């Protein structure tokens, strides 16, 4: 049918198909569809007018995409760097706070609290402490 429409058929084959077409409504409808399709396609293709700015538009889009990709990568890198810096600062500050906490706890250990009972922290030097007095008190 396509070949008939394109005028490629000749002689006997062509006349046989024509005879068939006269009798077969289904093939007539098929031929009409082919004709309409070809008409629509050639009409649309013929309406195409070259856009002189098309290539430059494509190239500027490619350029813009490159820039946006570069910005994307840059933004992503800055983001990663910020997160890394935040983690490092967090670890550092956390470490500092942790050490501070340990010191506070260590002043409150049982050993130190016990020592406080025998040698008050108000005593400036251990040599000022009256050991004899303490011993006498213990013997009593």
């Amino acid at each position, binding site marked *: *049918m396509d070949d008939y429409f394109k005028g490629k058929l000749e002689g006997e084959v062509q006349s046989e198909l024509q005879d068939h077409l006269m009798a077969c409504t*289904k093939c007539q*409808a*098929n031929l*009409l*569809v*082919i004709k*309409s*399709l*070809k008409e*629509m*396609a050639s*009409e*649309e*293709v013929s*309406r*195409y007018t*070259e*856009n002189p700015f*098309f*290539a*430059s*538009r*494509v*190239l500027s*889009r*490619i*350029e813009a*995409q490159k820039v946006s990709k570069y910005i994307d990568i840059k933004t992503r890198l800055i983001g990663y760097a910020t997160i890394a810096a935040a983690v490092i600062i967090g670890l550092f500050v956390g470490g500092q706070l942790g050490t501070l906490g340990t010191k506070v706890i260590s002043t409150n250990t049982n050993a130190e609290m016990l020592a406080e009972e025998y040698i008050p922290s108000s005593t400036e030097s251990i040599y000022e402490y009256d050991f004899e007095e303490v011993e006498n008190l213990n013997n009593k």
Partner: protein
Amino acid sequence: MDEKELIQQVIQHSNHQAFGILVDRYSKMVITTCMGFIGNYHDAEDIAQDVFVELYESLPEFRSESKLSTWIYRIAVNKSLNFLRRKKKETFLHTIVGDKRKGKAEQTLDGIVGNQYSDVNIEYKEQHKLLRDAMSKLPENQRIALVLSTYHELSYKEIAEVMDTSVSSVESLLFRAKNNLRKIMVKSKS
């Protein structure tokens, strides 16, 4: 400069001038292919731009064993079908949310058809609209074969290369496509 040299220039030196020449060579082919699927010039040109942007990015993967036009046809077909799928989804969602207006794609298509054929008789315009509607109801692979065959008169072999299938499959696809078109058109007329 022949095609191979142009491709080498683009791949090795990111030569925009060389790519511009390729765009000029293939723009008509791409726009009319997209037009065959979408039916409106404005959208077809937008999609054609996407096609060339993708071509630029995928050119390093291109193997010169096949023709560049085959590669470009493939991108154009995929981009056009993706566009149609997106539009279909949008129209569907409009219906779901109870929007009584027509879908944007439908409005555009009506507008374009109306503007394009205002000087031609109504019967002709109606015929084209019927045909477009019928084409949109065809299965995707039948539509691809039909567009490539009618808009560019590609041979069965060339269509088979674009669609990555056999020549006999293309023959059968085209046969079924035309039969289905006839059935759909008869149904919509009655």
